[in-house]
């Protein structure tokens, strides 16, 4: 059990001249919930397709549950539950028959009704053909297929696509339950908020490259997106020298409002105390670093990269 759940080393995939995945090395530990994040077209599905041996690495390698993705694919798939992206269901098979398909292939006993109850598919829908399913119902069934047989590893490719906010919350709850059970969950998403809510760690993929791999908290610190605090005070002009305080990156004054950019979250209180010494603070607005800004700083276009770069330069200067 000491092998990582997923481990890629220099994984590279080319389609002709297109470099879809560019020497990605990442590790997903056992029992972890790992969010695989990135904009559409970043190479997330391509990476997942390599893990399941649907496609083969151009260079580098992938190991899943201790097995090579090519030689050990069958052993991997016996212990893995997968939810593919954009795959149609069998239109003439019922929901329960889809679960039976998984049970047959994995040679296990599964109670289809219990699995589908858990993913929130009504009993009536469970027994009818899937060609009348909505996208959300199809996604619930697909999740049920992945969960069937209590796999050691769940590989979910954009599991929340087609789900309404309620469905997304239920799916996150199921991911949490699975993780508590000791299941490793590897799931991809282009929605940062969803990943942040359930993941122990995230890897951010952009243009085929793994640009970051860490906990959300560490990423936020390392991303160069600095925490900002806004202070409304009686006499802003009385505040002097705040910009020189250790941990304060910059100060902007707009009427009675001071906008203070800090190096990290711990510096916010320093700024508040400093201002409070000089004048009366009448209001404090502190927001968590916008996760969208964080995400964009890793995956955005040149413009965003420049901005993130500028912020870092400011920190250093």
């Amino acid at each position: 059990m000491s092998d990582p759940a997923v481990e890629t080393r220099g994984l590279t995939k080319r389609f002709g001249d297109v470099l879809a995945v560019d020497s990605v090395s990442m590790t997903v530990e056992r029992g972890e919930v790992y969010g695989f994040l990135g904009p559409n077209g970043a190479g997330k599905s391509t990476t997942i397709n390599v893990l399941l041996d649907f496609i083969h690495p151009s260079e580098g390698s992938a190991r899943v549950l201790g097995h090579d993705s090519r030689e050990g694919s069958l052993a991997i798939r016996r212990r893995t539950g997968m939810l593919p992206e954009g795959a149609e269901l069998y239109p003439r098979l019922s929901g329960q028959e889809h679960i039976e398909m998984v049970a047959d292939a994995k040679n296990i006993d599964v109670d289809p009704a219990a699995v589908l109850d858990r993913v929130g598919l009504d009993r009536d829908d469970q027994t009818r053909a899937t060609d009348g399913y909505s996208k959300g119902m199809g996604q619930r069934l697909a999740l049920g297929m992945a969960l069937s047989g209590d796999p050691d590893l769940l590989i979910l490719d954009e599991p929340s696509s087609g789900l309404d906010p309620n469905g997304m919350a239920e799916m996150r709850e199921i991911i949490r339950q699975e993780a508590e059970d000791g299941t490793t969950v590897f799931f991809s998403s282009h929605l940062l908020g969803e990943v942040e809510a359930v993941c122990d760690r995230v890897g951010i993929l952009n243009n085929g490259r793994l640009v970051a791999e860490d906990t959300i908290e560490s990423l936020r610190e390392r991303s160069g997106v600095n925490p900002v605090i806004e202070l409304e005070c009686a006499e802003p002009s009385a505040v002097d020298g705040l910009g020189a305080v250790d941990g304060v990156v910059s100060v902007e004054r707009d009427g009675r409002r001071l906008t203070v950019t800090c190096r990290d979250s711990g510096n916010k209180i320093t700024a508040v105390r400093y201002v409070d010494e000089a004048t009366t603070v009448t209001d404090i607005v502190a927001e968590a670093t916008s996760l969208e800004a964080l995400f964009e700083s890793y995956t955005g276009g040149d413009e965003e990269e420049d901005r993130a770069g500028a912020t870092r330069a400011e920190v250093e200067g």
Partner: protein
Amino acid sequence: MSWVAIARRDFQDARRSRILALVVGLFVALVGLLMLTGSTGGETPAEDALWTLHGIALFLMPIVMLVVAYLSVAGERETGRIKYLLGLPNRRWEVVLGKFVSRSLVAVLAVGLSMAVGLGIMVVRFDTVPVADAAGLAVFMLFLATVYIGLAVGISALTATRARAMAGAIGVYVFFTVYWIVPTVNPQDSVSYVVEELLGLGPKENLYEFVLLLSPSFAYDRLTNGLLFERAQDGSELVEPGAPFYLQPEFMPVILLGWLALALGVGYWRFRDAELG
């Protein structure tokens, strides 16, 4: 044995999609109609009716079975469902075999039920009923059907989209049944041109005949004519006395099985390492 589960589920799908009903209905209607309308005059009216059926099956069976099976693997890839099949611990050969078995079962039911109906009508209409011939014809037609299903599954395993699988299936039909008899450019005449005109050798009649029999349709034709009806479609003598073994009806199963093995083998060989994007 997960190929059994794949075959069972695929057959279930054929039942629910009414493909099965359609194909069985087509064959029952065809055989029924032939047996109902066949002349009761002549020396062997029942055998004549079977012989007519054989002549129609020669051209109808290939196209029907290609249609039955051409999407078996390519359809799964086009819809992305292959990711469910192969995200599960199914081996790729199990997918190919399961599909082949399931679609062949469609042919078994179509041929079996239609011939049963045909026999029933023959018993009522004709004085003598050649049960052995009818059974033999059923077996040989089924043989032909499974070879073309194998060709279709093999092509399907080579292709990732419906359009390409369809083009391949049509190509096989045109190649083995239409091209084979086009005057002057058909394989027989082409080979004779190479041998006699380009190489300047004497005529090699046995070779030309063997080339003709390389089409599974014509191999089936010789097999059935030679072993059941003992007459050729044009009424001429079937096999020249003293012809080599590879022209004998008894050798035809080798050609038919060869195509079956080649089609499934090449299809699987390419599918085994295919990228399912």
